[in-house]
């Protein structure tokens, strides 16, 4: 009897500890930032959001993240396809390299891109001769975003390709469809949900990226200053309301995307 009682106490203690941890660590801070952004009233919030440098930073982030996502959709779909469908020497190596950007510290990724594209590097000099600079300009930001979000589309497409029934494809060929027609009419629709959810995760990560971008962007207000770096600058200069206002916009954006991806995935599983 006493041991059951004891274990019930233990169970109760564990439950409250775990729930408390969850609420204090995750729920509380997120609610806190929404509360704080409105602490000085709607007027102050609106002022900080409509501040030209702030909305320029947000708009620039969205634009560059979109470009990075499109690039990742293209190369990610291709790489996912090649890694699943073809057998060739080095396939396993490439497949394990896919996760590298997730494992690598973002500041290290930023440093790598900085060294690779800098004015002294071959790439930098070559671009210089063609008359444009990459580093500390928008292309460098896009490259950093592409690097950091590289695994998302590949990892979302691969399981779909693995599950796909080869019969569908064979049927298309038997009925005389060309390779291109089979790809666009049969294979691509099967991959589409994976591409979509991978792209959205990549987009939300690109919106949020800080470490890799801050080192290569140059951070010129209105030109190469993205939202997360803007927030960092506002924190450094003690403008908490400005920082929280932009944070809330960025957060709401990301939450909506996350919610949509979850919705998409549960619907797919439900079928």
């Amino acid at each position: 009897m006493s041991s059951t009682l004891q274990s019930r106490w233990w169970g109760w203690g564990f439950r409250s500890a775990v729930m408390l941890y969850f609420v204090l660590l995750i729920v509380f801070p997120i609610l806190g930032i929404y509360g704080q952004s409105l602490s000085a009233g709607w007027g102050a919030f609106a002022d900080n959001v409509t501040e030209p440098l702030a909305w320029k930073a947000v708009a620039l982030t969205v634009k560059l993240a979109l470009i990075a996502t499109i690039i990742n959709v293209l190369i990610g779909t291709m790489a996912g396809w090649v890694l699943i469908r073809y057998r060739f020497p080095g396939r396993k190596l490439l497949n394990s390299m896919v996760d590298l950007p997730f494992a690598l510290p973002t500041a290290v990724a930023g440093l790598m891109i900085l060294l690779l594209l800098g004015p002294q590097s071959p790439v930098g000099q070559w671009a210089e001769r063609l008359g444009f600079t990459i580093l500390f300009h928008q292309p460098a930001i896009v490259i950093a975003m592409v690097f950091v979000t590289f695994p998302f589309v590949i990892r979302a497409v691969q399981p779909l390709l693995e599950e796909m029934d080869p019969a569908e494809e064979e049927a298309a060929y038997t009925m005389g469809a060309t390779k291109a027609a089979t790809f666009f009419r049969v294979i691509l629709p099967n991959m589409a949900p994976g591409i979509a959810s991978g792209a959205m995760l990549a987009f939300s990560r690109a919106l949020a990226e800080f470490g890799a971008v801050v080192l290569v962007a140059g951070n010129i207000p209105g030109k190469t200053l993205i939202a997360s770096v803007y927030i960092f600058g506002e924190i450094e200069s003690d403008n908490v309301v400005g920082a929280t206002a932009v944070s809330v916009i960025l957060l709401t954006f990301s939450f909506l995307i996350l919610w949509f991806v979850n919705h998409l995935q549960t619907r797919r599983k439900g079928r």
Partner: protein
Amino acid sequence: MRRLWILLTFVVFALLLGAPVVRIAMGAWDQGWSGFAGGLTRPEALHALWMTTLIVIAVTVINTFFGVMLSLYLVRAAWLGPKLKKLMNSIVDLPFAVSPVIGGLMIVLILGPETALGGLLGSAGIKIVYALPGMMIATLFVTFPLVIREVMPVLQEIGNQQEEAASTLGAYGWTTFWRVTWPSIRWSVVYGVVLTVARALGEFGAVLVVSGNILFKTQTATTLVYQDVENFNLTSANSVALVLAAGSVALLLLMEWAKSRQGHH
């Protein structure tokens, strides 16, 4: 056609992933061994690596424990209603969507020296923000979903028949967990732990905001790399970055291994 696609994939991987890694490995040696060793054995570098180690250990232990417990509750617990479970399940993912800088800002807003809570703790002599505890909390926040996202699907998949059988036969909660549940989730936990270590090792944005990046006090390996780059001290930045990169590659190999074990547990 097939050849072309394979070649193109190799080119993308070489340019996007291969070249940066090779470049940083070479950059660390551009002043020879002494440059590399000098950058790494600077007192500030040693201190920063020590801070990173402390954070990684604390965060991994805490989040593994709470992660496994919460996954068990979210999948099995009868005392949580299905609606609440669903809500919590979606909240678990939120740290993925939060920019690390914003994650750091949240902690400063709640526990910073000017807030009520921070002031109270400060007067009791406990410093959270701009000190090690705050950096740990920031990293805990960022790495929170990793273990849960690995363990929950496995728990859902194995079902609870075996566990029920064990408790019908009279096994206590702990015995059931260690003898029945643990062996099936073991490799997913390992995988989640490796992901947590990798993320904690590399966390930058959140830690930068919370720590204030104070030399010899709250500087971690990644924020040191950042500061070195800002000071145009590239060789030293490279040597620390190379150590971090080597660590991540080792973790990547460990991940592959854990994944292959996860496949046939």
